[in-house]
């Protein structure tokens, strides 16, 4: 072997080394770019898995086992398609959704969208605090203690923080959803079976199955989350140049949200369904039932997940609602303002939390009715908001080259129409539960 070939080899290795370094550096740069943007998409999608959502997922796992897992893939697509449009609008126009509705459709439509939003969101907030109460009852804490503490905690968090700080807390809450993954592993499910059902759809044409299916899809997308996500990107001042990262954020959010749903369904399917406890109606009940089947920790983690989800949604919903209303009607909004600069914003925020938590504390609170009202409200409000979004995102004077492409429009309109139809089915069955056969209490 001569020296020349050896030195050539060494040089080659060195080159490959610097090449690798370069690639590593560019990777690190890309991750840093993404991290600067990440937040609104992931947070919003995960808030989807709130108290109401988790109850539905639990029921579907307990009643139909793995059979409904396939619906998660179309749900991920729907979540991404709708979320992406809002992210794009926020990044391109630099304006919130309610700002745009106001500027393009005038005062009166905005006003009614905002008022409807207020009451629907209030009902949702009640549902979240009810979730907190249910989760803490598993740990033997009375709702008269847990709910007030939760309300104060949520209120202070936002009042004392800047957008950045609050976002960090919220992102941490997203990580806590992993408790469902651990719960599912404790439940020792048949992973192969679960995977098969995720990819291959199984259809049963009985009323109960179809209602459960629509329920699953119907709870995935709530109208308020569009406003929240868009406002998040606007408040973070993400520029058009960072749009690819914003899109990645939304995609990551949609997938992680659905992954958590997967684990919740798998957990309850492996335990409650297999052991025949199929009439479970809510998440708290499921958590208690899990203890004898999958061990104490599975139950505790399941309940903890519910608590986390409820608290998480209870902090975001009032915030988002107050934000949207103030933006649309022209009052100062945003947690980067002081109380004095944005009094209406902070008052709305406070009222939503106080009334939301207060209703849960009423001795004979008609919680079930409020839960139904929140679902019906979401259902009625959703088509309106979706149509506004689709009209706005196709406006060339607003979006420039970033209007929907024809393909994207087809996907988006199909998604929107499907979502609207499904939500109407959910609303219908919520009002007339007898149709579903196996009905909630």
């Amino acid at each position, binding site marked *: 072997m001569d020296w020349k070939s050896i030195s050539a080899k060494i040089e080659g290795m060195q080159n490959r080394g610097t090449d690798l370094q370069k690639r590593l550096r560019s990777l690190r740069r890309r991750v840093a770019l993404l991290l600067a943007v990440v937040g609104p998409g992931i947070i919003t999608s995960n808030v989807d898995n709130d108290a109401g959502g988790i109850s539905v997922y639990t029921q579907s796992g307990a009643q139909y086992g793995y059979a409904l897992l396939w619906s998660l893939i179309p749900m991920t697509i729907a979540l991404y398609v709708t979320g992406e449009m809002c992210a794009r609008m926020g990044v391109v126009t*630099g304006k919130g959704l309610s700002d745009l509705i106001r500027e393009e459709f005038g005062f009166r439509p905005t006003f009614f969208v905002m008022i409807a939003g207020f009451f629907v969101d209030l009902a949702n907030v009640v549902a979240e605090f009810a979730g907190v109460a249910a989760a803490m009852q598993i740990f033997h804490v009375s709702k008269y203690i847990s709910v007030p503490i939760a309300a104060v905690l949520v209120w202070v968090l936002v009042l004392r923080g800047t957008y950045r700080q609050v976002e960090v807390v919220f992102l941490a809450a997203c990580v806590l959803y992993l408790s469902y993954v651990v719960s599912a592993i404790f439940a020792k499910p048949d992973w192969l079976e679960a995977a098969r059902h995720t990819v291959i759809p199984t259809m049963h044409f009985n009323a109960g199955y179809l209602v459960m299916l629509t329920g699953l899809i119907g709870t995935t997308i709530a109208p308020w989350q569009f406003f929240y996500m868009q406002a998040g990107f606007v408040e973070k001042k993400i520029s058009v140049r960072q749009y690819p990262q914003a899109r990645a954020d939304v995609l990551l959010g949609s997938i992680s949200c659905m992954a958590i749903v997967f684990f919740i369904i798998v957990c309850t399917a492996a335990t409650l369904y297999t052991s025949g406890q199929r009439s479970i109606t809510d998440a708290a009940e499921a958590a208690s039932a899990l203890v004898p089947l999958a061990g104490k920790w599975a139950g505790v983690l399941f309940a903890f997940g519910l608590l986390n989800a409820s608290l998480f949604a209870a902090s975001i919903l009032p915030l988002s609602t107050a934000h949207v209303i103030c933006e649309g*009607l022209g009052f100062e909004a945003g947690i980067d303002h002081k109380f004095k600069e944005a009094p209406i914003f902070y008052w709305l925020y406070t009222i939503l939390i106080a009334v939301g938590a207060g209703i849960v504390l009423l001795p004979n609170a008609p919680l079930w009715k409020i839960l139904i009202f929140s679902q019906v409200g979401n259902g009625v409000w959703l088509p309106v908001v979706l149509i506004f979004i689709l009209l706005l995102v196709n406006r060339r004077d607003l979006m420039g080259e970033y209007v929907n492409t024809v393909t994207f429009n087809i996907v988006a309109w199909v998604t929107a129409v499907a979502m609207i139809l499904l939500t109407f089915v959910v609303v219908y069955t919520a009002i007339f539960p007898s149709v579903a056969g196996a009905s909630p209490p």
Partner: protein
Amino acid sequence: MQLYATELMGAETYDDQGNFVGRVREFFIEPADQPNRIARLLLSRGRFQPLVARHDQVATVAPGTIRLNCNERALELYQPNEGWLAVRKDLLDQQIIDTQGRKVVRVNDVDLAEMRSNGNVELRLTQVDVGLPGAVRRLLQGVVSPSVVRKLQSRLPQRTIRWEFVNLIEPDPLRRVKLRITHEKLEDLHPADLAEIMESLSAAERQGIIASLDEEMAGKVLAELDERLTRQIVEKLDPEKAADILEEMAPDAAADLLADLPKETSDELLEEMPGQEAEDVRELLSFDSSTAGGMMNTEFVFLGETATRDEVLGWMRTQDLNLDQLDSVVLLDSAAQFSGIVTIARLLMAAPEESMSELKLEPLLSVSADADETEVFELFDKYNLRTLTVVDETQRPIGTIAVDDVVSRLVAK
């Protein structure tokens, strides 16, 4: 009577014969002509082509009805014109800058006043309504009778902005020129206030404002803005314009701005800047931003320590100094090394023949350019400083750190 634009929208319009001409759909102002006069009314009538009535063709105006002083045939056909400001499209529901209240607000309604001249009525835009009365009117119009609305709104707190304090936000530069939108009113604001206003606008709107400010003001605003926004704006500016703005900025502020930009962009901008300014900024850029050198400003006043008070004042009068920021001068000894500072107040009170070395502040404090910023903070805290001199290895002063630099560093932490 007080008139409101939204109340007149949809008003039935009749010509001098009493024939129905159409309904009012839009009011146009021609800023090139008169900044506040409603110059034209857009009248639409079903499937016919819309007509336009000029201000001198209007005889009377009342809520719901407008009468013209000419025949329908005298009206022009409507042709869109970019130079017309449309009250409904460009003003209602849009955001504007209230230059007196120094914030961004949304327009709920537009208040109009009647001006009678021979045979016709002119409408003048007096103020924009950004408060509850306008909101209530918009909500209840057509649902309850106008008199009830008027009674209701009179009880609500007013929030209006006079038209001369309204600054429109128009991101499109061509349209801005056509509508005669200048940002003179914005230039009267404090740069920090304008920076705060800009943070609540969209990217295109921010860009539009910076592009139309003069370089000096633009530089001051950029220095006050959040650094991420500054970066976004500068990256999108024409490099020549960006360099002009940087040139107007204090070298330390310019260096701070350039330090945040990607290397290629900042090099390109430095190339565009004139030699001396670019050199100053380059020098500052070579210091680590967390050291005294990274905090200092290289524009400072230095004098020989043997000079008398009168000589100094005489010389300072001939210099172009930033008087609002100047609070002390730096003294040099015969070897051009740092020998102390004299505060402006001491200079003011001194006798005419007193020499600088008698006036200088004890103890003699300075810091080297590579000293860590915490050392700087500690010195300011311990000695209650306003200014601290930065020296190089040979004890020659190369810059000063002012207390406001320290405050903004500490706030950023």
